[in-house]
Structure formats: C-alpha cells, structure tokens
C-alpha cells in the first residue's frame, strides 16, 4: 500500500505554506512507493488519506515556540486521541478553519483514520500574506524533510533508508 505525504497549508500564507514546501522537497527525492500531495483544506483530509497505511501530514504550527522548531506526533488509529488541550489550541479552538486536529479526531470518530498517521509541525514565524517563507523557517526545511523521510524510512527497503536521522520518531504500529 502506498505511503502518503500530505503538505497542508496555504501557498500564499507566509510560513503557513511550510507544509507545501516540505512536500515538494520530499517529492523531489522520488522515494519509491511514496505519494506526495499538497492540500489546503483540512476538512478534505479524511478523503485524501483514504486507504493509506501510513500518512504524514506536514503543517505549520503556532505554539509560541521558537520559529522553525519542529514538532512530531503519532496520531493514527493506533495512537491515543489528541487531548482536549490539543483541541483548544488547534483548529477546534475557534475558527472557520476546521483545523488539522479536528480533522484527525473527526476521522477517528468515523473510523477513517489511517492505521498510522504522523503529524509534523514546523513553528511558523509569520502567517501574513506572502508567497515566501521566513528565513528561519526556510532554514528549518532540511530538518522537517528529514523528519518526514525518517518516518517513511521505517517502511522503505534498506537501501533507501536515511542513515542519520536528525529527528527520531515513534511510528510504531
């Protein structure tokens, strides 16, 4: 079954586009058995990740951490639900934008979560209208790509594995 990398974000929302940038870099690697897509609307994720066994969603994060900081969370069907706290601080906390966390938990309620789902967040410096990333987030792209590839590597044949991971992930089944 194909693994799926989803870059989530708005292409002209400044660092909100970081998921798309990471997705493009991962796509350029041409990893076998890995599909890469860009997506803008979290409510559509439930259809996008469809039958994937492993899906990775890369998105911008605003947590108050240093811009460029990387966050990784296992959130698939086999992982515990995101906490109420996570809800409050992601999409559910109050927006039209039905956010990523809301999409994850809605899919869980409908039994439409991939068995393994990994969320990779990159702390944004700015989400003002712009078609470019901030320098700090630009610098964080290699680590974010490594995080994605690291998660995928658990599924890849040995010759495609990345030897040195900058970020360790728990994607255990």
């Amino acid at each position, binding site marked *: 079954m194909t693994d799926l990398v989803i870059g989530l974000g708005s292409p002209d*929302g400044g660092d909100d586009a970081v998921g798309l940038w990471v997705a493009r870099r991962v796509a350029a690697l041409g990893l076998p058995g890995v599909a890469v897509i860009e997506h*803008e609307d979290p*409510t559509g994720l439930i*259809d996008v990740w469809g039958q994937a066994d492993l899906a990775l969603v890369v998105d*911008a994060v605003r947590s108050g951490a240093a811009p460029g900081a990387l966050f990784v969370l296992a959130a698939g069907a086999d992982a515990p639900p995101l906490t109420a706290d996570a809800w409050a601080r*992601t999409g559910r906390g109050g927006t*039209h934008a039905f956010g990523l966390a809301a999409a994850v938990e809605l899919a869980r309620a409908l039994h439409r979560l991939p068995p393994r789902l990994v969320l990779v967040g990159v702390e944004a410096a700015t989400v003002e209208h712009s078609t470019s990333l901030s320098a700090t987030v630009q610098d964080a792209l290699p680590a974010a790509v490594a995080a994605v590839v690291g998660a995928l590597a658990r599924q890849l044949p040995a010759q495609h594995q990345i030897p040195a991971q900058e970020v360790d992930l*728990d994607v255990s089944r």
Partner: protein
Amino acid sequence: MSHKLTDGGQVLHVGTLSRVEGEGGMHLEIHDGHVGAVELRIFEPPRFYEAFLRGRSWTEPPDITARICGICPVAYQFSACNALEDACGVSVPDTIRTMRRLLYCGEWIESHALHIYLLHAPDFLGYPGGIEMAKDHPAAVEQGLRLKKVGNELMTLVGGRSVHPINVKLGGFYRMPTVAELGGLRPALERGLEDALATVRLVSTFDFPDLEQPYTYLSLRPEQGYPIESGSVVTTAGTAFDVRDFPEHITEHHVAHSNALHASLDGGGPYVVGPLARYTLNFDRLSPLAQQAAREAGLGETCRNPFRSIIVRSVELVEVFSEALRIIDAWRDGTAPSVPVPARAGEGFGATEAPRGVLFHRYRLDDDGTILDAQIVPPTSQNQPSIEADMRTLAESWLELSDHDLSHRCEAAIRNYDPCISCATHFLDLTVERT
C-alpha cells in the same frame, strides 16, 4: 500538549496549528435577576485591510480581500469586483456573471455544509461538538462531509483552488471551465442535491426554542433568481435602494467592546443579514424544489426564528445545488473569460450575498487606478447588535442556569448567525458578572 514517546523518552509538543481566523467573547452582566450589559466582543485585529488597500492598484482588491476570510473568499472577491467594475464604468457580460454565480454556489455549499453538520447540528442533538456527534451519527456527518466535498470540487474546477480561488480577476476569470469539465461534476452535484434534500428533512426534526425576531431583515434582491452574486438592497421595513446608496442607509460606528464596527440601518435598531433575511425577502425567488422542501420542513414563506436558520441554510443548499446544475446544463464553450476594466477616476459600490449575509465594498480610485479610499462592511459586523439583542432576550429566561449551561446556550444562540468572527465551535469565552 506534551506527548511522551515510547521509544526514547522524547517529549513532543503539538501547539496551535495555523489557520485560526479569529477570536470572540461574550460578556454578560446580571444585576438583581435581570440582564444588564450584553457585549459581543470581537478580538479580531482592527480592519486594517481598508487602510492597507489605500495606495494599491485597482486590480488588487479581489486577491487581497479574499484573504480576510478562509471560508468566504469568493464573497470578498466578487464584492470587490462588483465595486471596482462599477467605479470603472464596466458591466460584465451575463456569461461572466453566470460563472461567478456558479463559483459562488461552491462557496455556499462549502460554508453551509460545514456549519450545518459540524458546527450547528451538535447543538440540537446534544453534543459538545461535531466530533462527538460523529460517533453516534456517523451517517449524518458523512453526508455533511460529502456535501462539503462537492463544494470543494466545484470551487477547485471553477476557481482553481478549493480555499482561496486563483482564477478570479477583475473583469471575469483567467480561464473559463469547459462544458466537458463541468459535465464531469454533474453526478456529484446530483448526489449533492439528494443529500441537500435529506439535510432539510433531517434538520426539520430538531427541536427549536421559541424566539421570534422583531428586527428588520436586509438582503439583496436581483432582477431574477435567488440573491447570490448581485442585486439591489431590500428590507422588511419596506425600503429598497441601490447598492450605490448603501452608505447613505447603513451607518457604521465603533463600540468600545469590539474591534469590529457595529452597523445600523437608517438610524434605527438592529437589522439582520444572512439566510433568514434572504429567505424572508426572496422566498418567491427560490426554485420550486427548494420551496417544496421548505414547506415540507414546516417553514412558511418567512422565517423569524433564528434557531430555524439551520433549516433555511439547508433549503439554501437545495437552491444552490439546483442552480449549479441549471448553470452547468446551459453552459456553452467559447465565451470570453474576461473583459477589460481600464482604470478611471471615480467611486464604485458592490455587494454580494456571502453565506452569512450581505458583504458591501466601496472603493474610490484615482485616474491611474490607485485606490484612494476603501470601505468593507462584512455581514458579521452588521449582525452584531442583533446577536446582542438575541442574547439579552434569551438570557432573561436562562438566569437560573449555571454559568456553564448559560455559556453553552449562549454559544448555541450565537451560532444561529454562523458568525465570521472566528466561527462557531467553542469560540466563546463567556464571562458572567452576577450581582
């Protein structure tokens, strides 16, 4: 949150993900068993967009103002287009107007489906939110997601993107979709129409609190059809005026507790824009199918109970699915995607019906097209006084409730308006001051 991993003790965090569009709060004062001050507080940054637009080119507002809202960018794009084309003395052909209407149908579908199923229905079915409701009513929520997906597909085909369309330009579109492309959407739209009719039947079974709004309703009314992408202004007070005269009738004023301006009509009390106003002022313009669905759901030709707005939104879903199918079936290839809109000095006015009500734009241009002045009146700012008035009426009968229950009821009542401050799901930070 922090999350302890099992394989190395690494502590991980997921903080606030992006695309949060606003915050709001409600302040309620209760003195001696009576409701005192009721203030809907909107913490959105002041509307710097109007200042930001000054000095920009006349071709830019459709793209710039679309960023104000992630759920109704088409409304901003087309209100801006209407106003700027008016300023430049350009009237677009019916084909362009029709394609705008089709794209707008997609936005209504996206917005209404999300609000009905994931934000509003949980209030009536007794769930804290759409996720909890999905566990017990998966078929209903799947139906809502299916509806929204069709809206996304329509937006993607006509607008080039499902969220912020990139195919829209002043004077029309960069490219028109073809008959073949539009025909590809027909099966999904037909299924969507069936889902929309089922939605009307579903929500009509909910229990609705008694509340009749005495306020004036205001909506657009076009020469033909249900108001979506154009029209002049009509009200239940019997007034009717051209969009050009909007500033003479609508006065915006600042109130200390909100960053969003309040609006009043002809110096009077609260007025309401949105589905109830559109429906009440334009029932005769609904398609026979939508009218029949409304009647079967127990609606008359007017509706003044804000809680029943969920039925009206569902009827409007039937209307826009029917309309989208009608437009697709009549479409012919070979029409010009746009007309030139050369700059000239002047002032222009434009309004369209965003999913949650009339959105007005005004621009004043220099002779080279530089924007000298811009004004944007969004629907939620117009509805703020009515929301507060509803709260005052309702809270009087809810005073015995705990703060927690009162907060929940107030949230639900505010969701009747599908407010664009931040939307509906638990945005409300209610403070109650009891003395």
